[in-house]
């Protein structure tokens, strides 16, 4: 009854719809594909434009970045900026990259471990105080990081874990919990009740149902939550700035500000570091994208 290979099913269903379509209007299909591809190219260009500026800036010589009038392409290409940036006097970037990775990965795992049960239960089981719980979780997102940072610093100082990764993992997890809960909650809630009931009738326990039936069906939601959390951790700034004082412990988001000087800024490095910090996230995304897109299809629930 329940198949866990929605991918193939989905593709087949999609194909049959397209076939049916062709039956009605044989010509337009090709034209539509063209329009779509053109639209896709335009969309991609718009979304990439600022990052192209960044990319081009990152291979310009320092002096050329602020030239008037500006140059679209470098008159002299300096790809070695990407090598020299790792050993600048301003910031120990290899450490900063490692810090960012560790904090973000651990933070995301923690969020998932904590948010998944809460999201599942609140979506599937009404209980008194459910709305209060969800609102409380959400309220954590409504606070201003700038103003919270002093309190956070003070708290971790008292706990003796200021300037540690652990502190930042906890901060990131606590403050990103809410969106993860909400995103996954909405996906769990969107599942037809019949799935759970069918599984339960079959004698599966609640946890078995969750693991073998429900989880595979809400993959898109989980993946969205993972990406959302990971990116938020990856780019967190306000708390890291005050909690992590050792240059080697700081994440890239803080390290990058070291290239902005009082009278002059190393824009080529600022841009190069930005590009480098985008890449891992895009790779992560490329890896999970299929999961996100495959997801649940009606074919699986017949």
């Amino acid at each position, binding site marked *: 009854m329940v198949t866990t290979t929605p991918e193939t099913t989905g593709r087949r*269903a999609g194909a049959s719809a397209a076939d049916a379509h062709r039956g009605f209007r044989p010509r337009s299909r090709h034209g539509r594909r063209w329009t779509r591809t053109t639209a*896709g190219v335009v969309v991609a260009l718009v979304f990439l434009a600022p990052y192209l500026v960044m990319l081009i800036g990152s291979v310009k010589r320092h002096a050329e970045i602020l030239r008037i009038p500006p140059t679209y392409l470098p008159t002299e290409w300096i790809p070695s900026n990407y090598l020299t940036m790792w050993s600048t006097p301003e910031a120990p970037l290899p450490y900063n990259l490692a810090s960012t990775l560790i904090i973000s990965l651990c933070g995301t795992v923690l969020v998932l471990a904590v948010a998944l049960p809460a999201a599942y239960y*609140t979506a599937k089981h009404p*209980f008194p105080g459910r709305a209060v719980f969800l*609102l409380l979780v959400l309220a954590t997102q409504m606070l201003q990081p700038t103003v919270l940072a002093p309190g956070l610093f003070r708290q971790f100082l008292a706990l003796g874990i200021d300037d540690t990764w652990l502190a930042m993992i906890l901060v990131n997890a606590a403050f990103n919990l809410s969106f993860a809960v909400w995103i996954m909650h909405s996906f769990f809630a969107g599942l037809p009740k019949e799935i759970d009931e069918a599984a339960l009738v079959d004698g599966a326990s609640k946890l078995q149902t969750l693991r073998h039936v429900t989880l595979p069906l809400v993959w898109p939601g989980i993946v969205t939550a993972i*990406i959302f959390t990971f990116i938020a951790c990856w*780019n967190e700034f306000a708390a890291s700035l005050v909690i992590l004082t050792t240059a080697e412990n700081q994440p890239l988001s803080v390290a990058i500000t070291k290239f902005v000087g009082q009278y002059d800024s190393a824009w080529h490095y600022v841009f190069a570091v930005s590009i480098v910090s985008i890449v891992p996230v895009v790779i992560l995304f490329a890896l999970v994208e299929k999961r996100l897109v495959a997801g649940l299809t*009606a074919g699986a629930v017949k």
Partner: protein
Amino acid sequence: MSEQNTQVQLPPGRSAPPARRELVRALPWLLPALTLILTIVLFPAAYMVWTSSRDVSQAGVDRGSAGLDNFVALLNFPALGRVFTNTIIWVVGVVLVTLLISLALAQLLNQAFPGRRLVRLAVIVPWAASVVMTSTVFYYALDPFYGVFNQFLVDLGILDAGFGFTRRPVPAFVVSMVVAVFVSLPFTTYTILAGLQTVPDDIVEAARMDGAGPGRIYRRIVLPILRPAIAVAVLINIINVFNSLPILRTMTGSIPGYDADTTTTLIFKYVQQDRQVDLASALSVVNFLIVLAVIGIYLAALRPMRDE
């Protein structure tokens, strides 16, 4: 666990209140999340509220209680009206435009076409980049002198000379809204795209067989299924956009006065320019209550929590 409960059934009407039992059952699932929030978030939040009632020196030393003085000072702030108006324009404008564009974009990305995977990856990039960096590069590219976007507009003949997009309150505010939409699109689009995967093909198929047009299918079948995804995306966007600091700070940071400020950037200016942490905390408390109210109304109206 619950179904394995072997508790002796008491006669109806005399059992322990079922509400409490349900709550106890729910706790193990919620406890990890609650623990994390209570241990990490509670103190700084309380500290913020505490600071809003204190007199804190510029250096950061607590000089004693200020009662409600900070809140009174806030109410007497002359530009408050403009700042609130800006905030409303900012949140409503950015969230609405983001949603509309995302719906269209998700539709496009859900269609099959060559290179779709690459386009999807391109759309994710503004999300992967930190908002600070995206704002910074926009600011740089829009500079009237050495900005590439400005130069591009000049070369196309649209402008005679570079225009100070980021130098005047209204254009800078509008440009900031564009950037805010830009960085909000990936998440919103993907949430909707993920939602689109839950639209059963056979139902759409059946509707099409029945002769329903694409518009009708979208309104009657697709949108209702997307509802939870949209509700959550909008919810998260409202909060994020409301609390967004880096875009306006970067794009309008050099502009004097408060004509391009929202409550969030005003908090920042209280801290950065006026060195008044106490006043900033008071405004944060107000800010928090406003978001809470907005979200409360939103949830009450849309009920995305699905109380079945």
